């Protein structure tokens, strides 16, 4: 850039913002290496002793290792909801883009109309309906509603419409391939980048989900990490006896975001891909 002064100013502003955005992570990383006592009486932005392994041991032994159960639950909910939602959205998105059938435009218009219904407004009635069929407090109460992803369907429909030429499908039909075969061996491979994006977003949405499992689950052995860590945090703040101490919660929080940050760094392209398809189209 020709304007040196302007460039320096720009980099100073960016540096300040980096400090702001990364400070909580730095704090969490430092705090997870401290004992509970030194959390309280040493400077909180620098290391003091190294107790990470000790904290991890405490974390995994707290309440008979329930943290590992929560971790497993979060992973299970994320994988099942993510894969399920993506498969269902792929079928629907492809059909909306490339198959002609009566009712298609009406159904798609309905989808577009409902895409803005806020999810939080649906949690309570979904809970009441689920309790009528005795599904409350089961894994299905968390998984089934997460399989619905109207935005994913919309995104895949746009992608398929733009990127798979009709001639390609027509050629496969002339070769005598069945519709499902065409979908599987012609359309799916071509949809891969968009599928990864939808999969990533639905898995992360499920991993991060809080309101739905909070309402649906009361058995703490079914909790995902988000709901579990919140109960620990509440007990710790209120000073209940036997509650997880702050160093345990801090370490638990760090362990909960590590897989996300790794996934984030490795799959950056797809994250940005998803956001830009959603925003610009």
């Amino acid at each position, binding site marked *: *850039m020709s*304007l040196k002064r*302007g460039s320096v100013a*720009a980099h100073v502003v*960016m540096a300040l*913002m*980096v400090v702001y*955005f*990364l*400070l*909580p992570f730095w*704090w*969490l990383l430092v*705090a997870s290496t401290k004992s509970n006592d030194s959390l309280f009486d040493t400077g909180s932005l620098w290391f003091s002793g190294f107790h990470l392994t000790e904290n991890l041991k405490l974390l995994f032994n707290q309440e008979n290792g329930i943290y590992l159960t929560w971790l497993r639950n979060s992973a299970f909910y994320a994988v099942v909801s993510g894969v399920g939602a993506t498969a*269902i959205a792929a*079928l*629907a998105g492809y*059909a909306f883009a490339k*198959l*002609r*059938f*009566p*009712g*298609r*435009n009406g159904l*798609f218009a*309905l989808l577009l109309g*409902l895409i803005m*219904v*806020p999810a*939080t407004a*649906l949690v*309570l*009635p979904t809970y*009441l*309906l689920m309790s009528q069929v005795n599904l409350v407090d089961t894994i299905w109460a968390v998984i*089934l509603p997460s399989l*619905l992803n109207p935005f994913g369907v919309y995104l895949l429909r746009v992608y398929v419409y733009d990127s798979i030429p009709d001639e390609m499908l027509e050629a496969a039909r002339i070769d005598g391939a069945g519709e499902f075969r065409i*979908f599987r061996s012609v359309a799916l491979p071509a949809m891969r980048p968009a599928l990864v994006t939808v999969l990533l977003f639905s898995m*992360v949405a499920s*991993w*991060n989900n809080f309101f739905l499992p909070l*309402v649906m689950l009361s058995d703490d052995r079914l909790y995902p990490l*988000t709901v579990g*860590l919140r109960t620990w*945090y509440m007990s710790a*703040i*209120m000073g209940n006896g036997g509650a997880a101490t*702050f160093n345990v919660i801090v370490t638990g*929080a760090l362990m*909960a*975001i590590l897989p*996300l*940050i790794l996934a*984030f760094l490795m799959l950056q392209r797809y*994250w*940005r891909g998803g*956001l*830009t398809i959603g*925003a610009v189209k």
Partner: protein
Amino acid sequence: MTELQTTPAAAPAAAGPAPAGRVKRRSLTRETFTGWLFVLPFTVLLVAFLLLPMAYAFKISLYRSTLVEGEVFAFFDNYRQAIDDPLVREGVARVLVFGLIQTPVMIGIALLAALLIDAATSRFSRFFRLAAFVPYAVPVVIGTLMWGFLYSDSIGPFSALGVNFVAADTVLASLGNIVTWQWAGYNMIVLYAALQGVPKEIYESARIDGAGEVQIALRIKTPMISSALILATLFTIMGTLQFFTEPLILQPLNPGAITQHYTPNVYAYQQAFSFQQYNYSAAISFLLGAVVFVGSYIFLFATRKRSALR
């Protein structure tokens, strides 16, 4: 949305002489069957977890649970009560104030960040893009927990400042900071993507005319991405109205300041799950959902021409 109509219009043109037409028709019935088969799982889910809950929420919001008669039809009584309820009004006023301040601040930061990474192409600016976006990957619950620790006067790094971040008059700003931290980078990416779509020649001619980088950023780039700015603002406001997780998580830090009716959603949640007032809770949720829903479409429609949204 307009492209919806193009496909059926193209169909008759493709139908040529009679034999070809017959083949076409046969494949159409096959397509009808496959089409419905493919959208069936999605349709079932749409009905079961969107339409049905919506209809059910509306239905129970029209009833009232009484000790003597059980469920009685009460028409719009719950809605009347919600509109008159000072606790609902307080929560609505709070999220509105919150949205009016937090939204422009956050979109402003996101815009500044997007303009910076668009102008500077150093290695550091790529690192900056990553750093700003990372908070979005953190679950809201954990982001809030992290800030809850940072705000703490016993273990947080700001305790020397002597500020109580969760006092009655500061907690809304503290919550605003959490939301800004978590979502500014997300909006930055959205706005940056829009900036990438602007043809670079426009900047060249402005530079030849003697415009500085700051002027180009303010007078050309920002107006060019107005549609993305509008969308980002809309989604932020929609999120604000439904404000729930952050106040619920921080509640134990100061239950006197973050009350049971702090936001409409927190209130609806408490009404349902602490007091079993399902009918009233459904009315509040439905009202809030309707405001968000109708609001988004009015907003999108009103800004459609200006922002060239399709």
